[in-house]
């Protein structure tokens, strides 16, 4: 029993890590939806490979699916090149068509094969440890663990070896091309890896939830850091944490494991989005309130500055008229004036506001930037 839990957890962790790594580059290259397309479109490849090998975990399967995945990418790009179809529509056309072919193949020949669309699409992590790698009498552990472990190593190797090229091709395609780094090659290399990772993850989480593993942790990490290296590390950590807590929750509630991991992914994203410093909702709101008053004071000093020494200055700097000129609520204007007086940006002379030296330099700075 404990062994089974451990197996499932290990598979979940390895799968999440393997998906998060290429996911970082997809998110940065604005190609997340390509993973959605690939994860659906490789179905016919899987079915055809299954016809040939009658096994769901042969290496041929992964190769066939990867080929179909790359074919999908090529097909989407060809459609776009005709200029008759925009990119989003090209993706939206290609993967449902290929997926339909896969579904029809499965249902047409379902009597001969033990391949279930439910399993392919939705996955069932609980069954993953049942298929074990056995050499003579030794039980070496679940097959999926080896498959996904291999994918994890492959992705890691690709990213480490081509780190510089990937980075360049992601941020500046034309520069990468002029420097001779063949961004197209990097692009297709990445797409091949995504296809292979996706098909490997099928067993565990199914095709739709692969997208949650690929897009979720990198998107969450993107909120937290500006550095690519840190984003890669964070994505893997977040992916693993989502997998572990998702599995644990699903066990408690007795519901779909993959579904729970996806749900946790969403809530972790939401949580980070709320609390992360600088980019989070809470700090945005806080900054917004602070800046509102700062901004209003700057507006006030600029207003006075612009009219300083001009004939209309008398009217424009009349405290009672300020809210009319600036179209502010009277109460708002009163508060802004109070703050500005406290900060010694302005001084009050009878009913007029006068700029102090400090206020004048604030206005000048604001105008120069």
């Amino acid at each position, binding site marked *: 029993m404990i062994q089974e839990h451990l197996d499932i957890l290990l598979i979940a962790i390895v799968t999440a890590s393997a998906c998060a790594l290429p996911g970082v580059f997809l998110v940065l290259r604005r190609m997340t939806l390509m993973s959605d397309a690939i994860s659906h479109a490789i179905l016919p490849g899987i079915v055809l490979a299954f016809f040939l090998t009658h096994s769901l975990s042969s290496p041929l399967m992964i190769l066939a699916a990867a080929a179909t995945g790359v074919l999908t990418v090529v097909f989407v790009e060809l459609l776009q090149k005709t200029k008759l179809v925009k990119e989003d529509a090209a993706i939206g056309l290609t993967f449902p068509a290929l997926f339909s072919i896969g579904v029809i193949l499965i249902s047409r020949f379902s009597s001969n094969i033990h391949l279930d669309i439910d399993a392919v699409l939705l996955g069932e992590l609980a069954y993953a440890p049942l298929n074990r790698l056995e050499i003579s009498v030794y039980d070496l552990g679940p097959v999926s663990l080896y498959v996904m472990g291999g994918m994890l190593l492959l992705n890691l190797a690709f990213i480490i070896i081509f780190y510089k090229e990937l980075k360049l091709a992601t941020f500046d395609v034309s520069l990468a091309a002029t420097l001779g780094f063949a961004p197209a090659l990097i692009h297709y290399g990445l797409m091949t890896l995504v296809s292979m990772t996706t098909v490997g993850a099928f067993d565990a989480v199914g095709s739709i939830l692969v997208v949650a593993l690929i897009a979720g942790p990198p998107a969450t990490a993107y909120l937290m850091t500006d550095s690519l290296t840190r984003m890669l590390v964070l994505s893997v950590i977040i992916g693993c944490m989502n997998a572990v807590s998702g599995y644990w929750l699903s066990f408690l509630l007795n519901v779909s494991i993959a579904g729970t991991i996806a749900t946790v992914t969403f809530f972790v994203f939401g949580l980070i989005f709320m609390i992360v410093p600088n980019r989070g909702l809470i700090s945005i709101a806080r*900054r917004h309130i602070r*800046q509102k008053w700062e*901004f*209003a004071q*700057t*507006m006030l000093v*600029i*207003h006075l500055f*612009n009219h300083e020494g001009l004939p209309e200055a008398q009217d424009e700097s009349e405290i009672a008229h300020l809210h009319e*000129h*600036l*179209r*502010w609520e009277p109460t708002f204007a009163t508060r802004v004036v109070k703050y500005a007086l406290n900060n010694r940006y302005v001084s009050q002379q009878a009913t007029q506001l006068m700029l102090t030296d400090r206020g004048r330099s604030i206005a*000048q700075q*604001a*105008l*120069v930037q």
Partner: protein
Amino acid sequence: MQAPDVKAIEVTDLTVAYRETPVLWDIDLDVPPGVLLAIVGPNGAGKTTLIKAILGLVRPAAGNVLIYNKPYALQRKIVGYVPQRGSVDWDFPTNVLDVVMMGRYGALGWIRRPGKQDREMAMHALEKVGMEKYTTRQISQLSGGQQQRVFLARALVQDATIYLMDEPFQGVDATTERAIISLLQELRENGKTVVVVHHDLQTVTDYFDWVTLLNIRRIASGPVDETFTSDNLRETYGGRIAFMKNR
């Protein structure tokens, strides 16, 4: 031309900010009726934003815009707008006549469809810009200059008193540029007010009679011969820091 009491457009203390970055700081601008005005300034000076703020397309953080002494919402029907050509998808399935008729939608109001009279107005506008031969042409098959003429025709059928145009000369050929400017001058002769976001400093004195120099704040505004001075230009395009010290 300088009837100081009537102002076609009156902008007072206008500040616009996108999130935390201010795009326009405390702008005051009076446009007298019947002028052909160029808004000039470097990239990122807030020229397009100023036009959009006048049209109520962006919400100002402070300040006010009046069109003939009334808020824009009440004066919509006397204002015509020519957006930047690049702001729309020219592969949209529609033809030249159809785009021009969109200029009538404001006058038509909800639900009512354009009728024969609207079609005639559209045809007339197309003749004015020399595009009457292209009525059924799909808009993606037009050159840049022709697309700009279509946009101009759409503004003409709005039959407005004030026209606001965002870079109508961008990416057009020399013939079109001459055709457009003579059209704008004709509009001015008919007492319309035309405000144009303009890029080419060389042509300001030839084309326009009024100019606003803008760089986040308004540097200067007035008749071209008084306002379009090298001092003001230096203030607008560079040497800003030096200016601040001198003040």
